[in-house]
């Protein structure tokens, strides 16, 4: 089943001409530790020292009934132990802050969404996936997801499928591809809608997050 979907996804990825990996990661089951030791060893080393990561992103949402993907772009900042600050700049200004506590979204300064991780178990799943993307700490995800991985030269691709049907009922699978850095994430939900996130111009800092960075997460 997962193979068929994987092939379908691969087909979609190729068809839409997005940056796709040449291989299907879901043919190569693996474990978190094995991934960390082989496939992800090099990028994980780089990330291990980074305390703050920042860069640009492009967010595509592919929906079955709409021919063109919904595209957005902006800047993000990841700070270890704080969370992810996701600032969409185009087509409109929106700030999405994800922490262990939950999700807060502000559109043009006004808070429009607030989901607490405590009340919404699903929020924790998004948070886990998101945070793991930036740390490549896939061993942390191995309890929630079955892991797959493959590398070709410098390039690598990692696949995740949820172990439980509970999460499976809203989320089908994810692939993370990259070379030196994480370059692309593809999330496929249960309805077949696909979200592709591309990360660009990633900067690393091994210094503790400064006051400016902390201020980004200081949502009440």
């Amino acid at each position, binding site marked *: 089943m997962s193979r068929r979907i994987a092939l379908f996804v691969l087909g979609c990825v190729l068809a839409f001409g997005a940056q796709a990996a040449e291989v299907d990661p879901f043919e190569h089951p693996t474990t978190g530790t094995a991934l960390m030791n082989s496939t992800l060893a090099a990028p994980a080393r780089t990330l291990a020292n980074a305390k703050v990561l920042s860069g640009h992103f492009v*967010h595509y949402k592919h929906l079955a009934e709409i021919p063109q993907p919904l595209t957005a772009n902006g800047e993000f900042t990841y700070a270890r132990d704080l969370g992810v600050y996701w600032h969409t700049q185009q087509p409109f200004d929106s700030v999405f802050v*994800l922490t262990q506590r939950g999700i807060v979204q502000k559109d043009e300064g006004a808070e429009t969404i607030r989901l607490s991780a405590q*009340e919404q178990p699903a929020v924790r799943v*998004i948070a886990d996936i998101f945070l793991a993307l930036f740390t490549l700490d896939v061993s942390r995800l191995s309890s929630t997801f079955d892991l797959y991985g493959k590398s070709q030269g410098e390039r690598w691709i990692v696949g995740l499928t949820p*172990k439980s049907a509970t999460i499976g009922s809203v989320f089908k699978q994810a692939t993370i591809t990259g070379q030196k850095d994480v370059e692309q994430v593809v999330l496929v*939900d249960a309805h077949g809608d696909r979200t592709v996130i591309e990360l660009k111009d990633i900067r690393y800092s091994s210094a503790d997050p400064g006051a400016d960075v902390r201020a980004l997460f200081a949502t009440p």
Partner: protein
Amino acid sequence: MLAVLALFAIRVLPNLKIETDILALLPNTQQDAEMDAALNAFSAQLARRQIFLVGAADLADAKLAAASFARTLTESQAFTTVTLELDANASARFDVFLKHRSFLLTDADERALSEGRGQELVQKAVRSAFTPAGLMQPLSLAQDPLGLLNNFLRAQIPSFGAARLEGSMLVVDAPDASYVLVLAESSGSPFASSVQERVMPAIEQASMAARRAVPATITILSSGAIQHAAAATERATKEVSTFGTIEAIAVLVLLWTMFGGMRPLILAMFTLSLAVMAAFTAVHFVFGKVHLLALVFGSSLIGSIIDYSIHFFADRFRDPGKWSPLDAVSHVGPAILLGLTTTLIGYLVLAFVPFPGLKQIAVFCMVGLIVGCGCVLCLYPLFTRIGRRRAPQLGPRIGAALDRRLARWRWTPARTIGAALVIGVAMLGLTRAYVQDDIRTLQQSPQALLDSEQQVRELLGSSVETRFFLVSGDSEQVVLDRERELTRELDRLIAQKSLSSYQAVSTSLPSLAQQQRAHQLLGEKVYASGGLLEQAMTALGFPAEAIEKRRQEFAAAQTPLDVSEWLASPAAQAARHLWLGQVGMRYATVVSLGGIRDVGALQALAQGNDSVRLIDRVAGTTEVLSNYRRALSGLLAVIYAIAGTVLIVRFGFRAAPRILLPSVVATLTTLGLFGWFGVPINLFTMLALWLVLGLGIDYGIFLRHGLDNRPTAILSVTLSACTTLLAFGLLSFSATPFIRSIGLTLLCAITLSWVFVLFSCLTALPRHAAAMETQHG
């Protein structure tokens, strides 16, 4: 007699149910019996729930251990449900809402639509399509472009406190360990000993299985009523059997030393067993189960019935040469019967107090006392043989020695003032006496269990509140509408941080009127041509066919969600227990609460509104306990007055106070001493003083009756006091607070009664010293 024995052995013993819950002793708090029954069922259902947290330093270990734990619990069949992994099929739970989606709206969305803030909804929906917030929705953007049903579905997810979903298991993180949540529901009342016997070994085995599953150290925390109840039963039965054994041995040794020979012992033990069995049988048939407290008071039977035996056999020392058992009947018989009468009056009054526990105690004691007394007066003369051996002289010597002391005692002014001062100061303690009616302090669990419970509460970040709202009305729909009004107020309290959460049926099942309003709003504002749906979908770039498809779906769904369909669907799973349904002529639901920070605000919501009530089981019981403590204190005074009248009729104005007052003064002094030493007073102190009343008056009557042979009367009363102290003094060492209360009260009050009654009945009072002198000299 044989019939009682047979009945006890065949019918009673195998079916005997011992109840340990203090609450079971209490009357129901409400006037409405049907509503009470429904509320009791609801509480009972909550009490069956048990939460376990299986923890290890490494989450993977904790998961393996929890899996083992849950499997063993399931296999034991002691629990009806054991949940380790959450219901996988979330979409099945949502199906019924999808079917009726054109009638469902959250409160917030309904307000936004009716207040003309629809543009906000469109904007929000369009934006979340471009941000990660749009991820992980139960319905896709195409299925629910405005996210209205997604919002409704999200409100259905019950809160698990600080637990997060890890795979399909719920996990809580602590700094040094990760815990996996296992939820279980036992198959019967946690207070039933039969359920405890099945559940406790199952938990024990499951814990062992969990520890065997992984080499790492596993911590298992738990929270739930059953372990407390089981601990209470175990401790109480252990105490009752330990104390009972020590007490029986001590009483036997005492009797043997005093009376010599086996016959008095065997007769006394036989009488006792017969009386206790008759009492058990009566309570079993009248009430169906025997409460622990009746059992504890049952041991007071040992005191009284042994007393009758003691009075009977001690009579022998009056005239060891010529005594015959029939003499004893004619000599002590009237005193025993008079004592029995005053005691029975006391218990009879207790039997009419509308308090199930007290009724049980009263029935238990009355049946036991009558059977015991009958045995002593009818059987003893037949079976007592006067042995050739001389009766042991220890008893008479003690009696004589005490008598000499008392006879020589003179109430000099110094002694009178001294005694008055001591008693006066002790009684002053009454002003410092403090009352403790809180049920939680009366039924205290072992510290380890309380710690475990506290840890679970801290880890989960929420506690099970004992307060909840009861909403009632003349029809299902009225109840749902009222509940929705209440939850709107509760939402306001949550925003003010007075409350952290609530759970209500109407969140998942709005009333039909509410659903019609939602349907109308959706039709006018959302699905109409050029409406919000069209605006959002066009903005996102959906083709016209997709919009038309949504509209057709809306038009096709023409029926709202009704109660029976909701109840039958998996969607009701989380809230079904809150639906009390038809209760008598009315309908009712419960709104459960979490994290209450401002009780006053909640009480204000229920004020002046008969159909919305804030129920607080703990405060309710505390209030009831306190009411009954007051009622019993008053009744105690009434009984003393009745007993005083009986004694005055029998002994006249002069002698009656000397019989009655020692018990009264002993009672007041005991309470005074409790005040000085900081021992709290509660309902159970009052119950114990009830016993003191009966026993103390008995002592007076015997001394008065025995004036012609003072050493024998003194011996008899002293032995009675000793057996009672042995029986109850030991209860002072009980780890169960309410049993300890009874023990301490009796220990103190009986000792004082004994001292006071000896002085009051046998020493010459200052004014009558001369008269007594001539009588004795």
